[in-house]
């Protein structure tokens, strides 16, 4: 049992970027991120016995992390109130003009729905539509349609924000 736990922790450590990505994408307040981080780790541990190695560990961890984040409804009201300030506040300084574009896009992503965020995250990781569809349980065509809509949504949101600046 002890060695299984150590093995699991080691695997998590190697793939912790996945958990950080999901936490940053779905939560905005540092305390909420911490809560989600703990919840994903815990849920992954609970499901680890069912992981038979048929898929890659990273693929399995993506599923656990996204499933947990999407069905994690705690403190949602508080979160909505904090979206603007927290997302804008946490973005580091990357440059000047370039940074402005980045900030707008980053903020626009923060306002997407939970499902759209999942698609965006997998897309950013260059996963093929087939693999995204396998994770979400919808057809690859459906993923493509949703992805096009998300891109349009992001462009519009970014434009909207830039006009208010």
């Amino acid at each position, binding site marked *: 049992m002890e060695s299984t*736990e150590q093995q699991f*922790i080691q695997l*998590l*450590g190697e793939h*912790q*970027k996945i958990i*950080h*990505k999901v*936490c*940053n*994408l779905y939560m905005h307040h*540092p305390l909420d*991120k*911490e*809560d989600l*981080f*703990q*919840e994903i*780790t*815990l*849920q*992954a*541990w*609970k*499901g680890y*016995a*069912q*992981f038979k190695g048929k898929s890659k560990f990273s693929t*399995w*961890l993506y*599923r*656990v992390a996204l*499933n*947990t984040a*999407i*069905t*994690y*409804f*705690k403190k949602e009201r508080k979160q909505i109130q904090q979206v603007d300030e927290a997302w804008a506040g*946490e*973005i580091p300084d990357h440059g000047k003009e370039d940074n402005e*574009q*980045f900030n*707008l*896009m*980053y903020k626009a992503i923060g306002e997407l*729905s*939970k*499902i759209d965020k999942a698609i*965006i*995250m997998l897309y*950013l990781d260059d996963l093929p539509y087939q693999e995204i569809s396998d*994770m*979400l*349980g*919808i057809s690859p065509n459906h993923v493509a*349609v949703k992805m096009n809509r*998300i*891109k349009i949504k992001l*462009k519009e949101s970014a434009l909207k924000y830039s006009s208010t600046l």
Partner: protein
Amino acid sequence: MELDDLKHKIKKELEQPSANLEKLAFEKALHTPTKSILGKIKKSMILEFILNIICIAGFAYFAYTTEYKGLAIYLWTFVVVGLVFLFILRKLYQQLLDVEQTTGSILKTRLEQLYMLLRKFVKHYFQITMALIPICLIYSFALGYYDEQYQPSTNSTTSNSVEPYIVIAITLAYITGFTLFIYYFTKWYLRKLYGKHLDNLKNLLDELNEN
């Protein structure tokens, strides 16, 4: 500016652990209590389980020791209902444990599993509460009425002074009022506890299926 132009930069940014997560150990996270909806239902089920066993034991003891036949039948009925509820709880708990282990399943499947489980739990909870109303009221009145030992000896004075139709009217009004109160209260209580989660899960499924 298009998303694809910033793809790499956004990805890098999302991968950065926020300050408090860097020092958070996985070992510690493994041993913290869950805050998921499944955890909430699990806690609720365990509490129901314990309370139910205490009630069954208490009712069985009093039913066995009482000398009033009506009261004994009434309490034994509760014991039977309690045992049925225990059986349903046990079945639901097993389903919950099964769902809990499939954390790495396909998102749509996971959402459907959670939605069905939560709906089933709310439905059974409501049904059992509603089933207790006739037992609590009508059944107890009937048993009390027919069991001579169960009736207080001073009843003769009361029955002489109050018209039977008034007694029936008050009783019916009481039963109706109590039933309506329990019905709406249970609905409100379940809605408050799980309604938002059910709505959220339904919305997520709708969004996922949306063309």
